[in-house]
Each structure stands twice: as structure tokens, then as C-alpha cells.
């Protein structure tokens, strides 16, 4: 195991390969804590994002998941430069945008847009939706073929709103419709990257599916890349191509979606996935749940060594003393433990029992409906899908 002195994080190029739309290297965002009335001196820092690296190709979706307080939203905002990164490098479309000034940044903002979590507070209540969706054109001085109004109405129609509602105000719309307005505003200038910060968390399930489908349609239509910040692992599994699991400002696991959900390696990912309730009472009863004890440690004073060791079930129950010492003293690097599967853990292990299941199919016995209608009991055979839930216990 390498010593963490030089913190050899994988370069973003390693993580995604060349030609990436966005590369983020060792991004940190620390919020200073100051004391003192007149002469303020810094007494500490909230290490919200602490050395995060990843990259993103055009047209791809990267999911950022983790508990609240893990820094996923801060990371998203630092990438869009809504927050100034403390250190690190953000290269977007071949240009290092980390240190660009506001005026230098402005023309690039048409390529980087954002969709916010709360559709109620992210729309100005005093503006009509025509003004809101038209604002990007005015601000960027974008040329439109048919005039801004026609363009906005086409956008509204594209996201599933009535273009005649151009003159209405946000309060006249439901939550799902408002989120569509937010989406229309984000795609107005045909950006290359949209940072979606929990875009569907505030919506009801039936509406959530509508917005997720809309985001997917727009992605293929306009070749958009998404950074999809969410805490809902099932939604992320649906929409993301690759997923980054974050904990206390650091990357725990980073790999493509299918690998993450079929063969998760990090104990934190195991705990997260086992905690998601599935809508199937019998499966729920059978499922093994890894309960994390305690709360997220303070990012002001994160634990030594591996930040997760204070809550890690493996650390507590399985590891021996020498192994534990390594966890408490040595910071685990984000290393490739398998092809394209980056894990920050000293003792990673594939756990197929935790993996998101492929269909087992619902047996006919489970639906007495079939018994009631014996004529054409649609016996649904389990699809011959290889669960791929690796028994290859790739440990280091």
C-alpha cells in the first residue's frame, strides 16, 4: 500500500480517457471558519469538497450520490463556478476555467447550465415564464432566427408546457410544471453541460418519472452532458452512465453504472444500497440490511485515515487490529481495483448480495390474481439476464 504523503490521486485523464468534455482534478472547496471581531483570523475550515477528481464525456451522465453533507452539491456548484474552488483544476471543453474572471467566464456560461432542486424558489415569482425562459437569450445576447418569443414558445412546447402560457407566472404552475420551466431555461441556449442538482427530489413519484424521461429525451436530442446530483440511488441508476459515490467531501467509489450496481466494492456503497427500501414486502423481509450507526462526522474535523472508518461496518466487525490501524492512519487512495472501477478503500470487496437485483420475475404463486383468472395466466419467466454480480471477489 502506498504511503499517502504525495496523495497520488488518479488524474482525471486516467479516469475517463482523452477527449473529455469536462475534467475535474483534485477539486477542493473549503469554507473558512473565522473568529474575532475586528481582526478575523481563520481558525478552521469546513472541508466540504476535499480532493475530488472525475471527468465527463460529451453526451454522458455522471451521477454524484451520497448523504446530505457529503459535498455533492458543493462540487456541482464549484464546477459551474457559482462557488470559487479553493484549489484544483476544472477544464471544460479544453479550457481551464478554474481561475477565469467573471467577465471571462460569462460567454462560457451558455455552455454550462444548471437545474436546481427546488422548483418553487428557483423561479422569480415576479417574472412571467416567458421572461424567465427568455432571460438566457437576453443575457447572452444570443441571436435567434425567429425572435426570442417564438424561440421561448418552441422551448415551452418541447418541455411539455402549453406555449400559450407564456405570460403566466410561476405560482400558476404545479411543482412538476415548474421544474419543466427550469429545464426549459437550462436548455435554452443548447448548452453542452447541465449540472442537475437533485432535479426530481421535490417531485411526486408519478411526476418524477415524467421529468426524468424529459431529461433523457433532451439529452439525446441536444447531446447534453449531465452531472446528476442526487441522493436517490434508484433514480441515479436509471439515468446515469457512470456514478461517483461521495462521503465527507471525498470520492469513495467511481465506476460505470452497471458495475457499481451489480458489484459495489466500497463498504459505504454497500450500506447506501442496502438502505434503499424496495417496493416488495417479501423481498424487503428477506433482504439483509447494513445499518450504519451514528451520524456523518463533522467535515470541520474529519476522521483520520479513511474518513469512513468511524461508521464502517467492516472496520467494526471484520477487520483485525493491524488492518484497523491502517484504516485509522493511512488515507486510502482512489485506486483502480478493477478495470475502470475506482475505489478508495484499503479492503474493498465485491458484495453480490447487496447488488441491485435483476428481475427474478414475480412467481405466479405470488399473484393470486393468476389463480383467479386461470385461463391465460401469463407465466412470466425470469429473463435470462446474467446478473453479472461477480463472484470475482476482487480484493487487494
Amino acid at each position: 500500500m502506498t504511503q499517502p504523503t504525495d496523495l497520488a490521486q488518479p488524474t482525471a485523464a486516467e479516469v475517463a480517457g482523452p477527449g473529455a468534455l469536462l475534467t475535474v482534478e483534485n477539486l477542493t472547496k473549503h469554507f473558512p471558519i473565522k473568529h474575532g471581531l475586528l481582526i478575523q483570523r481563520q481558525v478552521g475550515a469546513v472541508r466540504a469538497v476535499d480532493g475530488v477528481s472525475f471527468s465527463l464525456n460529451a453526451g454522458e451522465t455522471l451521477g454524484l450520490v451520497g448523504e446530505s453533507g457529503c459535498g455533492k452539491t458543493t462540487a456541482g456548484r464549484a464546477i459551474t463556478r457559482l462557488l470559487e474552488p479553493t484549489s484544483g483544476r476544472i477544464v471544460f471543453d479544453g479550457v481551464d476555467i478554474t481561475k477565469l474572471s467573471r467577465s471571462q467566464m460569462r460567454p462560457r456560461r451558455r455552455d454550462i447550465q444548471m437545474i436546481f432542486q427546488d422548483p418553487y424558489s428557483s423561479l422569480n415569482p415576479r417574472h412571467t415564464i416567458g421572461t424567465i425562459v427568455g432571460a438566457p437569450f437576453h443575457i447572452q445576447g444570443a441571436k435567434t432566427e425567429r425572435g426570442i418569443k417564438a424561440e421561448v414558445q418552441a422551448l415551452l412546447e418541447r418541455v411539455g408546457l402549453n406555449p400559450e402560457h407564456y405570460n403566466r407566472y410561476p405560482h400558476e404552475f404545479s411543482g412538476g410544471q415548474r421544474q419543466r420551466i427550469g429545464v426549459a431555461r437550462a436548455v435554452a441556449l443548447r448548452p453542452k453541460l447541465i449540472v442537475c442538482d437533485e432535479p426530481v427530489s421535490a417531485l411526486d413519484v408519478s411526476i418524477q418519472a415524467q421529468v426524468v424521461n424529459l431529461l433523457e429525451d433532451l439529452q439525446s436530442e441536444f447531446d447534453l452532458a449531465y452531472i446528476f446530483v442526487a441522493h436517490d440511488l434508484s433514480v441515479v441508476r436509471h439515468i446515469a452512465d457512470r456514478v461517483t459515490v461521495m462521503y465527507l467531501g471525498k470520492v469513495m467509489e467511481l465506476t460505470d453504472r452497471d458495475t457499481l450496481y451489480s458489484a459495489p466494492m466500497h463498504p459505504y456503497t454497500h450500506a447506501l444500497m442496502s438502505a434503499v427500501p424496495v417496493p416488495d414486502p417479501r423481498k424487503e423481509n428477506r433482504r439483509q440490511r447494513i445499518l450504519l450507526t451514528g451520524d456523518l462526522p463533522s467535515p470541520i474535523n474529519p476522521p483520520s485515515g479513511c474518513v469512513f472508518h468511524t461508521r464502517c461496518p467492516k472496520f467494526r466487525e471484520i477487520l483485525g487490529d493491524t488492518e484497523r490501524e491502517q484504516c485509522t492512519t493511512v488515507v486510502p487512495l482512489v485506486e483502480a481495483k478493477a478495470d475502470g472501477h475506482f475505489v478508495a478503500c484499503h479492503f474493498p470487496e465485491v458484495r453480490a448480495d447487496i447488488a441491485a437485483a435483476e428481475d427474478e420475475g414475480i412467481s405466479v404463486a405470488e399473484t393470486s390474481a393468476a389463480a383467479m383468472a386461470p385461463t391465460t395466466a401469463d407465466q412470466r419467466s425470469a429473463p435470462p439476464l446474467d446478473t453479472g454480480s461477480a463472484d470475482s471477489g476482487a480484493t487487494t
Partner: protein
Amino acid sequence: MSDQKEATLGTPAVDFETERPTESGAFLSVRDLRVHFKTDDGVVKAVDGISFEVARGRILGIVGESGSGKSVTSQAILGLHKGSNAQVSGEIWFDGRELVAASEADMRKLRGSEMAMIFQDPLSSLHPFYKVGSQIAEAYLVHNHVSRREARRVSVEMLDRVGIPNPDSRYDDFPHQFSGGMRQRAMIAMALVCSPKLLIADEPTTALDVTVQAQILELMKGLAKEFNSAIILITHDLGVVAETCEDVVVMYGGQCVEKGPVDDLFYRPEMAYTWGLLGSMPRLDRTRQARLTPIPGTPPSLIQVPRGCVFNPRCRFTERVPGNRCVTEHPDLLVTAAGHEVRCHIPGPERRQIFTDEILPTL
């Protein structure tokens, strides 16, 4: 449970179709509850004729989208609409007492001691000026003639029970010093300090992370057993229902559209809205689908509830019912199998056929 299921399978379901749900002397029995609010725009029918029962030691889930009336129902049980402009009608029988007509003074005695509520947002439900512990002790002091020291002892014990480390020193902390999960635990401790017989939890885990949610749900399941309390869990997450509840009420547009034991709801659902809910959520326990299947349209306005079946504007199956009845005639909530009631015009056998042939393969 298993006996009941045998009965379900053995009895032909068609006989049930004409039968109305019967009522028994359950611990909590809500009968034809209506809560209407008069506003400038018209009467908001937030809850429009809902009936259900909960026995002690059981957990009932109420599921529905925002605006379906689930929270208003629970507030009516606690008598929180008294003194507002709400018009409450129907009957709520709680342990042999009727609550809709009960006076505010009577409700005060019950609230906190015999029935308690856990709110969705623990930060806004805890008073920021008072110590967490004293807020818990207050509930105990109001309903019991004990010394402050005794109330503190009970509260500390309760904080310990809900899994707060160092409860004795944490007693003197303020709400902002607690994390989200700990605040929710403190809320639960506050609700349970008088060992209520009925606990209503309104979206208790919605503001929490999945890891903390799992802890809280385990805690609630344990408490239902330990205190033999009846629990009503209000949620929009079917996963949470599958994990915790024994019976489920599905609400839509202020009405109950389907209710039954949890297995019936998940393995033999018969109402198009329940199908839609099950189909629209991405699931970790299934193969990833290329596309989600949303329920088209938006939830109904509670001022102008659709004529006929409340769900008809979003229902895919209205053509299956002859004579446009879905739009003209309001369907009754009828028993389809033991304990399983559905509000739909499509005849039972046909519904079950639709579920097996068209819905099940897409879930």
C-alpha cells in the same frame, strides 16, 4: 396472516363485489371522514369520505401524492382542525370515544398522552429556544403529576431508547446542535414519552438520508411491538410502505382508491392509480428499464374534483368501461377480496386480468 390469505384464495371474489366494507370495533376507526375548507376560490375537498381502521400493534401506511389529503386526514384524527375554518364531518372512533364531536379540552387530554404525532420536518417542529430535553419533558409533565427531576429521568431514558448517544448530556443541547437524524429521533422520543396508544408519523423520513431512514424505520417497527401502539405511517414512498407497514390505504384526490393488506397491494393491486405508482418508480430490485412509465397528467384540483372517478383524467383504462361510466358515475369502494377494497368501475375479474396480462410484465 396466512389464514387470512387462505380465505382470500378460497372464496370466489365475485361474491364480494356487491358487499360494502363492514366495520368492527377496532382500536381506531375512521368512518366516512370529510374535511372541507372554504376558500375564496371555492370549497377545497381535502378529504372526501375516507374510512379505515387500525388495531393496536399494527402499522397502517397511507400513501399518496402531495395534495391527496393524507396529512389532513391525520390532522383530523388529532383534532388539529378544531378552531380553523375546516368543516370536519364523519366519525373517528378512538378506543371507544368519538373524536370529531369531542371538545378541544378533551382532545388536549388525549393529545400527547394517548395519541401523538411525529412531523415531517424535525427542525421546524422543535422550538429553537428551548433545550431538546426540556421539550420532551414538557409533554410528560403536562400529562403526569411528577417532579421535574422525574420528568428529566424519563426523558433521558427515552432519548436513550431512541438511540441518542450520551442522552444525559444531550438532554441539555439545543435543537441546532442535533443532526437531522438525531432531531427526528428526538421528535420520536417526544411523541413516545407518554407511551401513546396511537402514533401518527407524517412523512417521518422524507427529509432524511436513506441510511438514517433505515435506522428510523427499524426503530419505529421495534416500538410498535414494544409499546403495542397502533401506528399510522404517512408517506409517498412505496418502498417505505413495503418495509414497515402491514396494511395500506392508497389516497388520491382526497379519497381512498384502494386499501388492503400490504401483500395484496404489492402483489395483487387492482386500481389503475396503484399500478401507475408501482410502475413509475425506478426500482433497485429490477432490471434497469430503458424508460420510466410515468402517470400522464397532473393530480386533480381539490376544488374542482373530476366528475365520476377522481382518477379518470389520468387513467389508461377508461375505455374498458362501457357507457362512459368513469366520467359520469362515481365508483364505490367495494370489497374485492378479504380486507381488500378497490374503487374502480372495471369488474373485478377483468381488473385482475389486466394486472396479470398488461401491468405485471411491465413492473
